[in-house]
């Protein structure tokens, strides 16, 4: 038996193969949940009745008028629920609420013969509300002390002492914008009841087992009576980890009540107004640097905007706290984390899961402080990178910390950083109205679910008599290429060609009790389980082959569908013949595989332990160009060196890196969620509730020159075939874009001052940063007027650049500028 990381001869992992569904994608033949409804007859459509209040008590619900609409079949309300009226895991998310908790909250669903009927029926339902006071912004929540869930503190050493001994001290505040997932396929479910009373739900879900559990408890059924299948998703990004459950339960409830299939597909506006997003954060901080610019103390408070219910807010916050350090050694640190409760959608998992918000804090600190310390941002970051032997604030040794500096050095060379820094300076000197910025930032991201129990997976592998292989695992495919990798893993473990392996859709009746496909762990966990199942089968087949070849079973080799004994290549058995022979000898040709990540432990209360199997590392260099007249910018070139271990599938991994990067850049520079925070009639309404108002990156935001390099000789021991997770970490490579924008904005001014940049750094936010830089003051008077105007119009998550300028340190009272002790 080989170790988990070792690769055999001619492995199918590591080959650059396209996505297993690519031919189906490009021909429109790939089916998504709502495509299935067309292929089924008698399907009813469900449509939500959405409340027009941020917070209100439902005082009356008259469904009778809906039944007068032709084609309306049923109106689903709380009275229809045979089990528990709850769509969450914290018992704080009633599926049919009697108290509206956010603008757009669905209080009932109408089932119609078609979409038109269901929609008109929903418009006809008469709901009366008693409006209640609402809390919308993080400022309002902090002021009102509206918090939910646990508050946790991550600490090491003595932050106060660390700060007191610092040569340079700064403090500040920052507001970090949220992000809409904007998977191209909105939430969709399709449910029917089969002849045995089994409820069969097809759902666009990252977490079929939990969808199954929620559907079962809403229906009052045991889990074995509910099967959930997910063919594939048109994107997930974390948005389909928790949020699909309630929608699936509505479809299932409708199917049970009417005996007909029910589809529920949210349109884009419903999806935007009903489902959770990336948590906005507020952070206040105090930081200290020693005389050599090393971080010596950090004290911070992070407040996330959890929305109306807890959902995954607590683990998201835990991951944020565990990533405040990013790639930097901070000896004395104390970070308090808390979750605000607001009358908004319930914020949820989103690629990075709090990690990006945590890292934002330290990257923002370093970017703002570098000019005040009189050091380049590159040098300040490099100075503070972890060294081998150091541990994170939560006590986990930073294994392979040397890779951070290796990656840094390789990237500086590959990107021509020094020469291009000079070029940028020359360009800026020659161009008064256009400036360029060049920045480098690192990523260190912990891999594994913080909650240790989730780090397990199952698989089911069948070998048929003709040698063909069918694999099934608990992970879901949302475009990340998990299924492609799993086919490669199975083909490698069995020693058969890729064409011998087929993958069947994810179903809860094939592999039970699965974890969400999340935390970047899909390939690690399910790959481990598939490999385990394949090795069980291969061991049994080795016995059969050994008898046929007259060698010891340990000396049987499986390569490309040919089975031989070591050194006896004159005799070989075709894989299919071996399968046939095994069948006749009554040897089992199928196996269930299981995997649990070893060596993890986590004390969630103390925030100490080793929650991660390993860290994924990377770094990126971005060059941007900013138009001083408008604040508009372009990404001229991006270089990335990223550590995926030994890649299971390089084309897939590069796709994850590039896609994650652009998505991260979207979060940091473009995508802006705005709610109506006035006291007007639409208080709480999401004003960016369509594709025309919520802008994700388009072709024009793609870096013109985009170069990704996979860190070489990067075998990760203890992970399937030496690979590393890749789903989330690259998103955080995008900080280099934000930092490059900061540098370009600074170049419009005299330099030496801190440049604050709104989040997201939209062209407008960059323009105000440019204006501030030109004026040579970090907090010009115009910022105040900007803030007041912006707030008059609605919540403004940072488009005004200098709203939260660094404030003076307590040690130098009265000083109008930044304090240096």
């Amino acid at each position, binding site marked *: 038996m080989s170790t988990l990381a070792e690769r055999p001869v001619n492995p199918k992992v590591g080959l650059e193969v*396209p996505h297993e569904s690519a*031919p189906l994608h490009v021909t429109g*033949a790939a089916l998504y949940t709502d495509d299935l409804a067309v292929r089924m007859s008698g399907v009813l459509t469900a449509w939500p009745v959405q409340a027009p209040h941020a917070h209100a008590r439902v005082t009356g619900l008259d469904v009778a008028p809906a039944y007068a609409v032709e084609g309306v079949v049923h109106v689903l309300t709380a009275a229809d629920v045979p089990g528990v009226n709850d769509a969450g895991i914290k018992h704080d998310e009633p599926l049919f609420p009697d108290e509206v908790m956010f603008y757009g909250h669905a209080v009932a669903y109408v089932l119609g013969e078609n979409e038109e009927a269901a929609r008109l029926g929903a418009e006809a339902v008469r709901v009366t509300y008693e409006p209640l006071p609402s809390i919308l912004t993080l400022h309002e929540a902090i002021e009102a002390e509206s918090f939910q869930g646990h508050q946790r503190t991550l600490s090491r050493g003595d932050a106060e002492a660390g700060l007191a001994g610092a040569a340079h001290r700064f403090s500040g505040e920052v507001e970090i914008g949220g992000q809409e997932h904007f998977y191209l396929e909105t939430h969709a479910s399709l449910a029917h009841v089969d002849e045995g009373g089994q409820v069969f739900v097809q759902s666009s879900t990252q977490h079929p087992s939990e969808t199954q559990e929620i559907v079962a408890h809403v229906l009052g059924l045991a889990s074995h009576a509910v099967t959930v299948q997910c063919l594939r998703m*048109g994107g997930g990004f974390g948005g389909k980890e928790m949020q699909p459950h309630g929608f699936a339960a509505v479809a299932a409830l409708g199917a049970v009540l009417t005996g007909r299939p029910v589809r529920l597909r949210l349109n884009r506006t419903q999806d935007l107004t009903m489902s959770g997003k990336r948590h906005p954060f507020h952070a206040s901080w105090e930081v200290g640097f020693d005389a050599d610019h090393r971080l010596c103390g950090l004290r911070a408070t992070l407040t996330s905007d959890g929305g109306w219910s807890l959902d995954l807010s607590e683990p998201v916050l835990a991951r944020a706290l565990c990533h405040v350090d990013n790639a930097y050694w901070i000896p004395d640190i104390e970070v308090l984390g808390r979750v605000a409760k607001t009358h908004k959608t319930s914020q949820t998992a989103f690629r990075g899961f709090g990690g990006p918000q945590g890292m934002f804090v330290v990257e923002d600190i370093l970017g703002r402080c570098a000019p005040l310390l009189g050091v380049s941002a590159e040098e300040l970051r490099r100075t503070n990178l972890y060294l081998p032997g150091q541990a994170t604030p939560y006590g986990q040794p930073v294994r392979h910390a040397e890779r951070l500096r290796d990656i840094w050095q390789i990237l500086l060379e590959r990107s021509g950083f020094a020469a291009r820094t000079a070029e940028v300076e020359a360009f800026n000197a020659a161009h008064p109205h256009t400036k360029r910025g060049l920045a480098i930032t690192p990523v260190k991201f912990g891999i594994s679910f913080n909650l240790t129990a989730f780090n397990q997976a199952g698989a089911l592998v069948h070998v048929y008599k003709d040698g063909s292989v069918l694999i099934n695992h608990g992970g879901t495919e949302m475009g990340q290429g998990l299924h492609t990798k799993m086919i490669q893993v199975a083909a490698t473990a069995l020693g058969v060609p890729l064409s011998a392996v087929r993958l069947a859709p994810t179903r809860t009746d094939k592999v039970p009790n699965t974890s969400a496909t999340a935390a970047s762990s899909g390939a690690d966990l399910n790959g481990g389980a598939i490999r385990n199942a394949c090795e069980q089968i291969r061991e049994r087949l080795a016995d059969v082959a050994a008898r046929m070849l007259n060698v010891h079973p340990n000396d049987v080799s499986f390569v490309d569908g040919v089975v031989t004994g070591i050194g006896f290549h004159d005799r070989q058995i075709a894989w299919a013949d071996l399968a046939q022979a095994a069948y006749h000898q009554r040897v089992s040709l199928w196996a269930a595989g299981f995997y649990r990540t070893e060596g993890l432990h986590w004390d969630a209360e103390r925030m100490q332990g080793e929650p991660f199997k390993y860290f994924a590392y990377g770094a990126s260099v971005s060059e941007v160009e900013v138009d001083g*007249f408008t604040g508009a910018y372009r990404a001229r070139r991006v270089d990335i060196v990223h550590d995926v271990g030994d890649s299971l599938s390089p084309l897939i991994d590069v796709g994850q890196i590039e896609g994650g990067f652009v998505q991260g850049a979207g979060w940091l520079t473009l995508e802006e969620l705005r709610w109506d925070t006035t006291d007007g009639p639409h208080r709480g309404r999401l004003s960016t509730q*369509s594709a025309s108002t919520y802008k994700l990156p388009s*072709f024009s*935001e793609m870096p013109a020159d985009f170069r990704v390099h996979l860190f070489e000789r990067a075998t990760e021991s203890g992970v399937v075939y030496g690979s590393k997770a890749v789903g989330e970490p690259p998103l955080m490579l995008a900080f280099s874009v934000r930092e490059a924008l900061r540098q370009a904005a600074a170049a419009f001014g005299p330099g030496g001052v801190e440049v604050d940049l709104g989040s997201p750094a939209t062209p407008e936010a960059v*323009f105000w940063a440019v204006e501030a830089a030109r004026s040579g003051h970090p907090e010009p008077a115009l910022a105040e007027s900007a803030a007041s105007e912006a707030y008059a119009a609605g919540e403004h998550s940072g488009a005004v650049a200098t709203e939260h300028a660094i404030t003076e340190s307590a040690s130098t009272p009265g000083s109008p500028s930044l304090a240096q002790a």
Partner: protein
Amino acid sequence: MAVPSTAVPSVVEPTAGAPSVVVNGRERALGEVGGHVTLLDWLRAEGLTGSKEGCAEGECGACAVMVLRPDETSSTAGADGATASTWVSVNACLAPAAALDGQEVLTAEGLGRPDALHPVQREMADRGGSQCGYCTPGFVCSMAAEYYRGDRSPAADGQEPAHEHGPNGFDLHALSGNLCRCTGYRPIRDAAYALGTPVDGDALLTRTRTAAPAARPTRTSSPQGSFVRPGTLVEALGLLAEHPDATLLGGSTDWGVELNLRHSRTGLTVALDRLPELRSLVETDEAFEIGASLTLTEVERRLDGRVPLLAELFPQFASRLIRNAATFGGNLGTASPIGDSMPVLLALDAQVVLASRRCEHRVALADYFTGYRASVRRPDELIKSVIIPKPLAPLVAFHKIAKRRFDDISSVSVAFALTLDSPSTGSGSVVTQARIGLGGVAATPVRARTTEDALVGRPWTPEGAAEAAAALGSEGTPLDDHRASARYRRAMLRQSLLKLVSEQQTDGASR
């Protein structure tokens, strides 16, 4: 909103057969779709689920399909072997299915099969152009339309490709209306730039050698309302006189959003998009007259740069998918304050030709708008054409302020058309005439009259323009909204003039 009425007026002759569309080479009956079933919903109900709904408002392109249209570039159209028609990408979510009656549509399913991929599909699949795959069929259709574009030609050996073009002549803007949330676009660009040229015998290329189907008169009804495509302008005007509450349809890029997002339903939809009388473009010594139902792409190609300010507008107007459907008639009919064509047409001193059964008359565009999405057009009138008088001002620019360069809506837009007394743009010249059109600063598109007056007679220098720039910053009453703050909008008005004069003065040397 129109009063629902499902009566089909008698002036339209019944068509030869029931309404139908040729999809992927096979004729399919449209059925009783009326005016509110979109092409996307109809295709999906037919089982062609490759086309997806991502946003239902023409922003994301997941629904993109191809339609065969007359080719606008070839003067020899129809001649032996020459291109007579062209595959055009459009958003299926915006067009009523009925508008495709008699037309030929191609979807990703018709382009190739999993075991027999089309070259576009092969490149997309092999290069990692799809991840979740949901946006992919739409990308494939936009890409294939560009693949078959008759005047796409590779850069000559040793020549740098044109800006945002591949070495194979592929114009990246062909994909500007398609959004992908997974890939970050690089592999899609590489797939597009790796495409070769369609080979002889390629069935879809061969199809472009013969004419696209002519528009035919159409009528269809559903419980929600009727759709009528009159055959002639006279019929259309008659219909309008009888049914002044009818919804007039150009490219349906705005009405489609009303249908899908605001669930507007109308008793009668009258499609003007293929009326021959509204589809001409004529240049005389005095003016350009542009038919109201020509798509912006058609106008762009027929003008071929002859109106430089329009040439600057087109690449910034929404996306290729939208420009392939949207018309000046529709833009003016909607009269939105943030439509990008209006500031440009204002700066060009355009006139609108309005026609009714009783008369035809011209209105200066500056006098056309009366309020938010309101105009002087009477209910029985339709917009026949837009007239752009000559001579054209020599110094023009269009500044669009938006979050994205591609596929976005303006927070502010400014169109300049200036004349200087000296033909050179040297520091000696003085502004003799100025027209500035603004979008996004008031309930209607407006002329910046105060600024224009402040510019005329002043030297064309940053100093000379400073006062006018301040005036420009005070034009209109910009609002705070989700696109931008009022303060930013005002700053951008001011900055736009400073940017123009700065770039003009230095000829771009120190930008």
